[in-house]
């Protein structure tokens, strides 16, 4: 771990301004991802801005009939909130499928969205990795790629985004609220929040430098059966090989997002029109441009079969 300076911010604007003031500064929330990466010197911020004291830890109704989830609401609290469980069951289920009880007690809404990939080469500083060290190459291509992306990847990077929560938020049409160092706020639809790797896999979101997440808002509840199905080798405490977040209405229409297949939660609205026709039709469109590796081609079959099971469950 490199030495760093530390300050505790008292308001969102102050935090964003502090980030603007100090080059290579980072916010720290729960620290469950950032600190691990700092110990390995994968992240080497020169300055940490602790945002834990900001009053962004509430879940409040919005005037549009939705919910605003503060950036610092802990994953445990979010998953167990009565309103979330009642109206956004998908989100609650996705959260509970992730990490462990202890981690969820620390992990925050914003930190979860910004957690970094679990590509093993990203974690091994002896190995080339474009995401960690731009221009050094991608070790996963031609290497161990069972966990990696099957769609939307690039020659530069085939990593996946590991968050379960984000997949549910994507299906729920969540919106990320931020404040920039100059004090300007903006709303970023979740579909536009995470980026595909392209030539710059080190840039993972559309956040500007120093931009602070203040909340995530959920639109008015959409009802339907909400199912989050996470597939993995062991029963708990593992990242998804593939996950399916689905909202299925009584008439068979609905929404689907996939986790574990791309650099971001994977949702193609055009594919959702085929939901009444079944999983095969939907995944054919969802994953039409898939380019898996030899080791992860099974994810295509797995995604289709998992979606089929989810649709059966939704109908049942």
């Amino acid at each position, binding site marked *: 771990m490199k030495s760093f300076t530390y300050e505790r911010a008292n308001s969102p604007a102050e935090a964003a301004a502090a980030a603007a003031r100090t080059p290579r500064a980072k916010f720290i929330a729960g620290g469950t991802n950032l600190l691990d990466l700092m110990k390995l010197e994968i992240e080497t911020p020169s300055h940490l801005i602790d945002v834990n004291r900001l009053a962004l830890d509430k879940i409040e109704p919005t005037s549009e009939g939705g919910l605003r989830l503060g950036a610092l609401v802990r994953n445990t609290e979010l998953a167990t909130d009565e309103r979330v469980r009642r109206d956004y069951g998908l989100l609650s289920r996705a959260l509970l499928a992730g990490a462990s009880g202890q981690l969820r007690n620390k992990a925050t809404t914003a930190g979860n969205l910004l957690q970094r990939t679990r590509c093993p080469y990203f974690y091994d500083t002896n190995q080339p990795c474009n995401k960690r060290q731009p221009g050094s190459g991608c070790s996963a291509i031609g290497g161990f790629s069972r966990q990696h992306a099957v769609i939307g990847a690039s020659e530069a990077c085939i990593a996946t985004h590991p968050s379960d929560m984000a997949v549910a938020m994507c299906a729920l049409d969540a919106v990320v609220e931020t404040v920039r160092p100059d004090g300007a706020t903006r709303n970023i639809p979740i579909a536009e929040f995470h980026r595909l790797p392209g030539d710059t896999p080190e840039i993972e979101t559309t956040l500007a430098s120093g931009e602070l997440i203040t909340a995530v808002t959920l639109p008015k509840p959409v009802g339907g059966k909400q199912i989050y199905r996470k597939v993995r080798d062991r029963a708990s*405490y593992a990242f998804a090989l593939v996950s399916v977040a689905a909202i299925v209405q009584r008439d068979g229409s609905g929404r689907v997002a996939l986790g574990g297949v791309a650099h971001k939660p994977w949702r193609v609205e055009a594919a959702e029109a085929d939901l009444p026709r079944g999983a095969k039709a939907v995944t054919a469109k969802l994953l039409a441009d898939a380019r898996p590796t030899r080791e992860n081609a099974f994810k295509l079959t*797995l995604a289709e079969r998992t979606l089929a099971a989810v649709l059966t469950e939704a109908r049942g």
Partner: protein
Amino acid sequence: MKFDTPATTNPIDQLRVIGQPVNRIDGPRKTTGTATYAYEWHDAAPNPAYGYIVGSAIAKGRINAIDLAAAKAAPGVLAIVTAENAGKLEKGSLNTAKLLGGPDIQHYHQAVAVVVAETFEQARAAAQLVRVDYASAQGAFDLAKLTDSAKPEKITGGPADTKVGDFAAAFAAAPVQLDATYTTPDEAHAMMEPHASMAAWDGDKLTLWTSNQMIAWNVADIAKTLAIPKEKVRLISPYIGGGFGGKLFPRADALLAALGARAAGRPVKVALQRPLMFNNTTHRPATIQRIRIGASKDGKITAIGHESWSGDLPGGQPDGAVSQTRLLYAGADRMTTTRLAVLDLPEANAMRAPGEATGMMALEIAIDEMAEKLGIDPVELRILNDTQVDPEKPERSFSQRRLIECLRTGAERFGWSKRSAAPGRVRDGRWLVGTGVAAAFRNNMLTKSAARVRLDSSGIVTVETDMTDIGTGSYTIIAQTAAEMMGVPIDKVVVRLGDSNFPVSAGSGGQWGGNNSTAGVYAACIKLREAVAQKLGFNSAEAAFADGQVKSGNRSVPLAEAAGDGELAAEDVIEYGDLAKKYQQSTFGAHFVEVGVDTATAEIRVRRMLAVCAAGRILNPKTARSQVIGAMTMGVGAALMEELVIDKRHGFFVNHDLAGYEVPVHADIPHQDVIFLDETDPMSSPMKAKGIAELGICGVAAAVANAIYNASGVRVRDYPITLDKLLDRLPEVG
């Protein structure tokens, strides 16, 4: 004490303390955090400095140059040790690769430097400033490509190859044949406590507080590596947070703590950081195993052949995957071969039940496949081919062999008769459900073991031996042995372990620790009883030791009186004659497993497990059960998830942390049951006990594999059995 004739009735047979489910006597210390693990001797050597290891970034090649300037200038740095400045070092006889690499590099993450600093954080930060310029060389990393060049190499307890009769002809003539190849991957011990040591020098004397299963081996090998007399080395290792064979040998933490302490002139602590735990240390090697079985139509095995390939660094050793095939089933014509390839992966070595663990993974699927071909129930097929003698040397019988009873008891208790022999028939909601069985088999090893027993004037009996407790329960069964022998309650016994100042024991490994170390304590107690009897004026043959008293006829004297004002001590060693040569000593069992396979995703989840074990006298059914359920859990890991994934381009295990190397979590292990057959084995020792902790893993993975086949109809011969290996072969969903 020489043990060379079968045990007769002795004080252990009273079973007042032995055989009771006594709680672990070290439990309170562990649950209150007062048991000192290697990294926690805060008072023993005050003001220690901290070492952090730099692992090689290449698998094979040379170091051109190391630039230490930036690291040396970093805050808090006291010393940096590399092969260049370490002075002359030898390679320990138990190590295949050097613990400190350079200029030649033998494997990925081989230690190339240790940075010593005032704090752990400073050492870690400075370690990342060490710049190493490597010249990488081509290495061999793919076992499958090396099978032709692999050479015969002997295995633990036997030759490379064995041959009885004419296997080829008998197999060719057999009306029912199986010829199948199975693979098992490299596996990591993945124990909770990493390798850790603290070293302190007093002049030319070295004390190492470490985490090690074998004290005397390691004293000798550390001394050899440092080229100092072994009298100058003291090892202290009373608590060990798991070993599984990974801590049988000296590792980089111990050597580099010693070198770091010498360089810094202060005690130094070194723990392997978790990401180094997979490539810096030893691992269970991958195997390729070809099994051929020929049988008559009525299920009698006529020919059995088992060939195994594994790899290791030059000078290394093979996995003994064929061991059990030499002994487990009858069959007149038989052969086994062991071939070792040279690989440039990290060092392969022992992991829980080395040999049988991997061998049974393959053999016990093969038997299941044969049962199906023959149309015979897999429990019955195993019973049909039982042998009471060593099938390679029929003049040797087994000291005890109750495999059939294990299988029958297990089948009864598990409800085996309700099973559908045809696969893919049972559905429970979204799950395809199936059951599988496998035999369990692991040899029992005898090695000499010494102990000292001291009686003080308050009647406290203190046992001292360099035996280790790696979480197994050694403290407790040793206390039970001494309590039984001396006729005192267990709370009057103090057990002190894991110190090279104590008499040399069997140590922990190969499931030999329990039987041998308690037999050593038995021997010492017999001596102490004689001394007590003499002191108190009893005829030692007639004196009874019970309730803290020594009694004979009408006379009864408190045991404590024998110590007078001081203490009475005795030391002895159990040594073995040739009973193990005359009789084959093995442990037996049967594993039954029920699994569910998700109809859509092919996720595999174990639903219930049962093990029935016949392993001599069970010294403590509670600690023994813990060992067996732990082993069963590890077997599930081997079946379903554990695999060190090799990057075959660069030659290292890629998933080198506990996020990437998955082992079972609680949710994977829903229900386990263990039954011990009531057995004593008078050939094994005066304790009449045998090993149990490794038997528990042998066969588990195959039972899981067989259950998966029974559930889904998909036969997978390559471990671990992950969902991607089933997915394409499951019926359509929807």
